[in-house]
């Protein structure tokens, strides 16, 4: 037996070390020939992208306005995380595997077998028969959408699920009507950059009264070197419609940072319900904190009368996460929800949370945020609940919990509450806990080994959030949680 100490039990420390040595399992790179736009960013490059993609004229205007707005903006450094200023001229803004860009594949059979194999290694089947589980997949590799499975079955119900490029070709009016209405082109530095240069993403439209029978799923993957990924997602649920959308992300392990600046816009028309779930597993950087994805993402939804938007996220990856999925509760009786588990390990830094903007009467919002910090990481919750004067009887409930593993990590909570209507009720609860020796000893005493005990405790801690995810996604989320925190016991 050992002398008493406040440090980890020896075996836990060994498991922790083993994990810190362990590698990011999705860090492989596939040698694909890439077609790249010239390096750097200029009006010419934007025109190149617009031209390359054969987009309608309004898009050039949208992109140019965004680019000009971006040039006047400053890279944000107010977040509770540090990154060196990014050299935007030293990156490629358009990368496409050559086999995709030379000839758009018409069917899955035409897709480069190398690309198919890569997605298989990621566990993302592109074959329709493998999608019988009820998930329709749109896979975005670097900047180009690879395949959208299950399209026909959805089309019969009037549901559009395709890449943003295809939507711009086939449904330009729908895109024009809604693009930039939730996240304006000049919303913030990274949203403006995205609006200027985005090359693909997913587009969903669910018509009036239709309940989408499948989980729609997009898989994002950064493969090429020195490319940013700027995907753009637009989801529209027409009156009374319902859709559940899943998003997953990985990237190869690289020693330099990769920028991921996505924009997601959700439009929930009266009486509709959009459920958006994310499992974010971008490369977090190596054990010395080198490399990793800078995940600077703008996600926002607008909910009209009686509509509901629910964000659920599991954030385990990225060197830095800067992300606040938000809901504008515009219509009366609209509902916004945010369920989040953010895990940081090693040198990861996460500054994430949500904004709930109450405009309509009787609007409701619920925030459940679970932060888990391990290693030398920093995990910040930053949330805004804003009740505007028009929002009679608005209600918000926020629960922000932090769980610390080990003694070198940090957890921070910045809840901002602005209430301009006296009928509002806003509740905020917060807890901080640590996986301590007492609870581990209790589990050990019952025969449960330390590693398994940690998984059990973490799963219990995240239960409320994971319960919001579609079943199969939740299973994946549990596995990912276990891997992300393997051995990081304290």
């Amino acid at each position: 037996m050992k002398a008493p100490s406040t440090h980890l039990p020896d075996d836990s420390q060994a498991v922790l070390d083993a994990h810190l040595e362990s590698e990011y399992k999705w860090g492989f790179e596939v040698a694909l020939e890439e077609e790249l736009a010239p390096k750097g960013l200029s009006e010419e490059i934007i025109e190149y992208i617009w031209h390359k993609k054969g987009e309608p004229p309004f898009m050039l205007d949208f992109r140019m306005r965004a680019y000009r707005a971006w040039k006047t903006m400053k890279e944000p450094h107010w977040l509770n995380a540090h990154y060196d200023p990014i050299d935007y001229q030293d990156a490629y803004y358009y990368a496409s595997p050559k086999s995709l860009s030379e000839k758009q594949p018409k069917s899955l059979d035409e897709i480069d077998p190398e690309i198919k194999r890569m997605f298989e290694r990621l566990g993302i089947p592109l074959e329709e028969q493998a999608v019988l589980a009820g998930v329709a997949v749109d896979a975005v590799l670097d900047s180009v959408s690879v395949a959208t499975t299950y399209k026909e079955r959805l089309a019969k119900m009037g549901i559009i699920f395709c890449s943003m490029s295809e939507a711009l070709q086939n449904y330009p009016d729908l895109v024009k009507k809604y693009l930039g209405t939730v996240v304006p082109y000049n919303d913030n530095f990274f949203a403006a950059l995205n609006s200027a240069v985005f090359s693909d993403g997913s587009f969903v439209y669910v018509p009036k009264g239709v309940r989408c029978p499948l989980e729609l799923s997009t898989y994002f993957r950064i493969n090429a070197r020195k490319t940013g990924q700027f995907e753009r997602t637009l989801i529209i649920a027409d009156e009374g419609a319902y859709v559940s959308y899943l998003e997953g992300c990985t990237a190869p392990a690289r020693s330099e940072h990769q920028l991921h600046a996505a924009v997601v816009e959700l439009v929930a028309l009266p009486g509709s319900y959009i459920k958006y779930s994310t499992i974010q597993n971008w490369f977090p950087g190596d054990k010395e904190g080198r490399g990793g994805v800078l995940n600077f993402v703008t996600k926002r939804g607008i909910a009209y009368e009686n509509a509901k938007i629910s964000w659920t996220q599991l954030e385990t990856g990225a060197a830095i996460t800067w992300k606040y999925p938000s809901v504008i509760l515009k219509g009366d009786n609209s509902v916004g929800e945010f369920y989040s588990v953010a895990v940081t390990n090693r040198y990861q830094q996460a500054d994430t949370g949500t904004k709930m903007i109450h405009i309509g009467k009787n609007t409701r919002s619920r925030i459940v945020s679970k932060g888990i910090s391990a290693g030398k990481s920093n995990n910040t919750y930053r949330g805004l609940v804003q009740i505007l004067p028009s929002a009679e009887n608005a209600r918000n409930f926020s629960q922000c919990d932090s769980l610390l593993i080990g003694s070198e990590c940090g957890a921070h909570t910045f809840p901002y509450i602005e209430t301009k209507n006296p009928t509002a009720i806003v509740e905020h609860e917060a807890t901080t806990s640590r996986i301590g020796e007492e609870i581990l000893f209790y589990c050990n005493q019952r025969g449960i080994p330390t590693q398994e005990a940690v998984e059990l405790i973490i799963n219990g801690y995240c239960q409320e959030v994971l319960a919001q995810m579609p079943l199969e996604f939740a299973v994946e989320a549990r596995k990912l949680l276990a891997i992300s925190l393997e051995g990081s016991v304290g």
Partner: protein
Amino acid sequence: MLEIRNLHVSVEGKPILKGLSLSIQPGEIHALMGPNGAGKSTLAVVLAGKEGYEVTEGEILFDGQDLLSLGPEERSHAGVFLAFQYPVEIPGVSMVQFLRAALNAHRAARGQDPIDTAELMRLLREKAALLKLDPAFLTRSVNEGFSGGERKRAEIFQMAVLNPRLAILDETDSGLDIDALRIVAEAVMNLRRPDNAFLVITHYHRILQYLVPNFVHILADGRIVRTGGPELALELEAKGYEPFLSPVV
């Protein structure tokens, strides 16, 4: 089955147990009594394998095996159970999930497959009934929002499920009302077998009216200063610890 020989234990350099010896045979109930700070709970957690307790001298054999060389979960697999004085909460983890993990760890250690769900639920319901616990308690998070009495009952419930060979009850009777005390004591008696044994740590005689011990030990200043039969507990209740505190010659 348990042989503790000349056990010396220090915490943060401070000696707590100072040459404790104790021998427990299968089928026996031993009561361990003593004033606050005598080292009763220290003995309990040292037997269970908690970190932070330095054994400076002596040995503990469990079925002839060196207990001190085993990790806490291995001791559990070997059949050592500790009913905690202050059980911790595990938010979000139901009693079913928790005991499934515990049972499967025990089964894995014996080379058995995981328990199937129907069998698990049958076992848990049966043992919950033994402790007169509402089956709804199985789906509640471990110890979360439980009253002091419920926690103690839940400990004995877990003991019943894991079916240990040596159970250490660390002040399980504290905080129980008369009815709960009887339920717990009857459940323990129900679990008695010729091949298992109980070490009951307590301040009070009343639990020993139900769990009649073969031996009562008085622990003072890190040593067992007196061992007797059940009547010793009564004597203690009448006289207090004072007469026993000067070392017995």
